[in-house]
């Protein structure tokens, strides 16, 4: 039995999502929340396997909940469920530790499939997100003055997969091109997500430390 957090402010959509989740994970226990504050309180009290988080909420951003989950329940899978399909909105959530995203307006069948894939460890990755991740790591690869910076870099294979995703190839296509199984490619994507999160967190910690040092 799975415990699932559902953070969505629109009641109709929340009901629809609930139905959908129950369809994919029939005997799961769902905690619903319409506000960031409620969700943050829930996160500290209840242990979740999966969290479906909307981004734009009346009292804040779902990214905060993703961050909090990453801190207190690292093994929880956070999935952003949003109407925004652009990387401007998605990238911060992915950096905060979201393990994939689902676009709300997609047909039920597609969402169901994506949800299943995510729970099986195969997160989606669009070309624009892939480009954003590439730019992020390329920027980090530049010589840094600060040696304290935790150096998380992508392997050649991971970079290769990212590049191909950015060019518009689907994961199965990339698998064929590299002579690898679909699961292996999915693992790479998972690694990329993980590294993005780890690196972002290290960077944020360092930034906080720097601000603390100089703010004194």
């Amino acid at each position, binding site marked *: 039995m799975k415990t699932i957090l559902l953070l969505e402010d629109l009641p109709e959509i929340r009901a629809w999502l609930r139905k959908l989740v129950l369809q994919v994970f029939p005997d799961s226990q769902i905690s619903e929340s319409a506000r960031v504050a409620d969700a943050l309180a829930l996160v500290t009290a209840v242990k979740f396997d999966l969290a479906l988080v909307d981004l*734009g909420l009346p009292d804040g951003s779902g990214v905060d909940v993703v961050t909090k989950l990453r801190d207190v329940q690292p093994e929880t899978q956070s999935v952003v469920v949003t109407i925004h399909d652009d990387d401007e909105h998605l990238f911060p959530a992915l950096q905060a530790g979201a393990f994939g995203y689902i676009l709300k*307006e997609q047909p039920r069948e597609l969402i169901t499939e994506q949800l299943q894939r995510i729970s099986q460890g195969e997160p989606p990755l*669009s*070309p624009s997100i892939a480009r954003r991740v590439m730019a992020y790591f390329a920027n980090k690869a530049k010589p840094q003055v600060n040696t304290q910076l935790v150096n998380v870099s992508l392997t050649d294979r991971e970079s290769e997969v990212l590049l191909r995703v950015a060019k518009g*190839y689907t994961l199965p296509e990339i698998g064929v091109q590299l002579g690898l199984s679909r699961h292996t490619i999915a693992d790479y994507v998972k690694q990329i997500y993980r590294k993005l999160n780890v690196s972002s967190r290290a960077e944020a910690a360092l930034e906080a430390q720097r601000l603390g040092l100089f703010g004194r």
Partner: protein
Amino acid sequence: MPRRRSPPSSTRLLLSIGLWLLAGMLLALAPPPAAAQALHIDSALSAEGDDSRFPEGAPARTVALPDDWSRSHPGSSGPVWYRVRFNAAPAPQADDPLALLATHVCASFEVQLNGHVVHRGTQMDEPYTMDCDHPQLVTLPAALLRAGVNQLDLKVVGYPLAQVGSRHRAGALSALALGPLPQLQARQRWRTAVQVTMPQALGATLLLTGGFMFVLGFFNRRESHLAYFGALSVGWALLGARLWLRDWPLPQPAAELLLASLLPLVTWAGVQFLLRYAGARLRWVDVGLPLQALLMPLSLALAGASWLYPLVTAWAALLALEAVAAAVFHLRRQWRGRSASFWLMAALLAAMAVSALIEVWAQRVSTPSMLARLAQLMTPLLLVLMGLRLVQQHGQALRQAEAGRALLEQRVREATAEIERNFRQLSELKIEQVTERERKRIAADLHDDLGAKLLTIVHTSENDRISTLAREALEEMRLSVRGLTGRAVRLADALGDWRAEVVSRLAQAGIEADWSAPEDLPQTLSARAYVQTTRILREATSNIIKHSGASYCSVQCQVADGDFQLVVQDNGEGISSEADGRLDRGHGMATMKQRAKQLQGQCLVESGPGFGTVIRLTLPLDRALEAS
């Protein structure tokens, strides 16, 4: 420090001009060769008496000439008679009449030759004509001369020393010269030049330059030293007023009091000039000097006419001390301040001190000597030089101020231009920021409000058609928002996005997809062109999936002749001719064409039953780039 050690060139120039002037003046005034034939008379029989004849009955005694009444006739207020006897022997050629020259007669005299009056001063009653500075030349008519011994009687009127402010105006008679008229005329001319003309010329110059500088300094409060210097010059020129006006309509004591009152005024101006020129301003001096200028005439008036000379001497000593103190103060300030004028001022003040010492000495001895006369010329000359220097400095300051003002104006112009430029940039930036913010706000509103409602319809509607329509509307809205807020998109990135969408959709529909596109395209698309092309491609893909029944689809992209070309070809049923009427319905062909047109491109659809469909989209890249 080193700069101060060596006087600046302008100072040197001025000093040398002064020296040359002085030397030239002395040369020009060189005394004529000693008159060999003139008879020098340095003693005379002297007696006091107010008659029209030499007082025969009064006690007479022989006095040496020059004769100073304060020594030979202490306390006497005259008139004093002098009798000289001479032989007509020195009579020259018959053409040259005989003449008598007295270089200093104070205040005026009458000459009688053998009992006949041959000369009389303009005013022989009080107040006397003041002829003290004017050398007197009296022609002795040949007709009155006797063979053998002749007798000259001189009646000198004047004031006792105690009643005048300067020994030069006290009753006295200089040595006499008797000789041929032309010879003595030459000597008189020279004497007049030194004693009268030169002082007058210098006085006039001082009056003019002083007046000019006073006005200059008066209206230019930051250069108050100029005003004081002008006052000093004018005051000094007025001290020589006796040269111009020998007959004053005033009684003697009043005239002397008036002249003496000038001294503290001149000192006031001089001291203040020295202080202000050194950049100092002392409150007690500001008050003390005018007070002194009032006090001195008051004390003189109270003491009475017979105490004038000793009082004026005492006052003069005090005033001189003040001047010396001011000079020392000035030079010390200038030295510390490393002023460029130090050397010039030091030289001028030293020269003035020398001439003042000579004057003091001249006041001690009897009738003024030649040296004293020349020393009297020194001070006005130095004042003129100093005035020149001040005017030069003023001119320099004016030029510097002018240059500074020009520089300032230039700076202001530059700064203004800079500010205007910055302001323009800032306002442009601001407009851009505001526009961007507004776009983002509209985008967020659309997402939050319209998006949420459409989404609710998508997921709550029982009707498949309605939820599909709502979904499409949502997609459209999102693309619109992206076109609203988006920046230019790299063509390579756009191709990646399109490929991912088209290929995955076709793959889900079980249609084999063949995508071919060049890599590493450097061109960019405007956000609008990107969005419109995305819509066209999405529509085409939907048509293939929904209507064509195709099993294969190829998409070819290329850039040629500045155009971006996209060819989508399927192996489906095609669009039958009888379907022409409803070609646009459901298939959205017209919309696709419309969108291409908006981007100055075109969208051609070739289709026939059984031959599949070919959609050719051509967009001019550079214009697509601009259309944003």
